[in-house]
């Protein structure tokens, strides 16, 4: 029991010595400016990289939108097409053997025009 008490006292003494030596080693004076400077530089670079990423994303979205608009713009159904074809068929029906055949002819002509337009694009 006595030796246990001795050991405890010895440990307490060693702990006190270690505790007292805790402030002996310091960070060097240039560490603070070094850390802050590096952190600021990295933060700036990070902001720059984020800006470039966002700008690239925005440009890509605009590009894709323009491409979609351009590629689908020529084929968009025109509101007046059905009426125009119907009108054309009515005019042709006089000499074409009936309205049905005139409608077929009008559709064929419309397809030809669309085909020509697609080829020219």
């Amino acid at each position, binding site marked *: 029991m006595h030796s246990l008490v001795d050991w405890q006292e010895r440990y307490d003494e060693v702990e006190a010595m270690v505790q007292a*030596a805790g402030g002996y*080693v310091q960070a060097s004076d240039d560490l603070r400016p070094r850390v802050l400077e590096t952190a600021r530089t990295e933060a700036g670079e990070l902001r720059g990289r984020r800006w470039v990423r966002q700008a690239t994303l925005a440009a890509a979205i605009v590009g894709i939108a323009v491409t979609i608009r351009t590629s689908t713009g020529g084929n968009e159904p025109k509101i007046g097409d059905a009426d125009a074809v119907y009108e054309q068929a009515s005019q042709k029906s006089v000499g074409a053997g009936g309205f049905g055949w005139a409608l077929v002819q009008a559709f064929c002509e419309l397809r030809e025009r669309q085909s020509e337009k697609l080829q020219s694009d």
Partner: protein
Amino acid sequence: MAPPDDFSQRVRDCTDRLAAAGVAALGALFDLTSHRLVRFSVTLTRNQHDAEDAVQACLVKVASRPLLLAAADSPWAYLLQMVRNESLAIIRRKRRAGVVTSLTDLVTRRRIDELEQEETHRAVWLAIRSLPQEQAEVVVLKIWEAMTFAEIAQILEASPNTVASRYQYAMSKLAAKLTKARQEARHA
């Protein structure tokens, strides 16, 4: 020294400010923690320059991703863990983990009123540096950071029993070394 809970709370306040204000608030966190972090890292890397590199890498990482630290249960324990991981990475890179028998690389403080104790401080640091890294880090966290074995175990990712055992071994060695150093000093 402030009680550990108070210190942990101050670290949390700093990390919250860092998360809100960004890199502009890093100075306060540095002033509060750098000495302790360098001291901890020096016992792992056994070199002041490497220790400061590890602390710098950690604090810069924290500044660029402050939510990492702010979201942690205990930001101070998390910061210590980050510094430990960074220090171990530096050791692995430089293969410099052997026992160091001098203090020439360290930046030390010499206060006029502590000149008489300087020899003791040097003996303590030399004794700590002679310990295996696993034991030295437990001593630092237990005595200087006033952590419980359970808290240390979380940082070191070991069981509390293992940590307590390492501490006992370390204290036995330190007691032997420091008693010897004290006797030598008396004879000299």
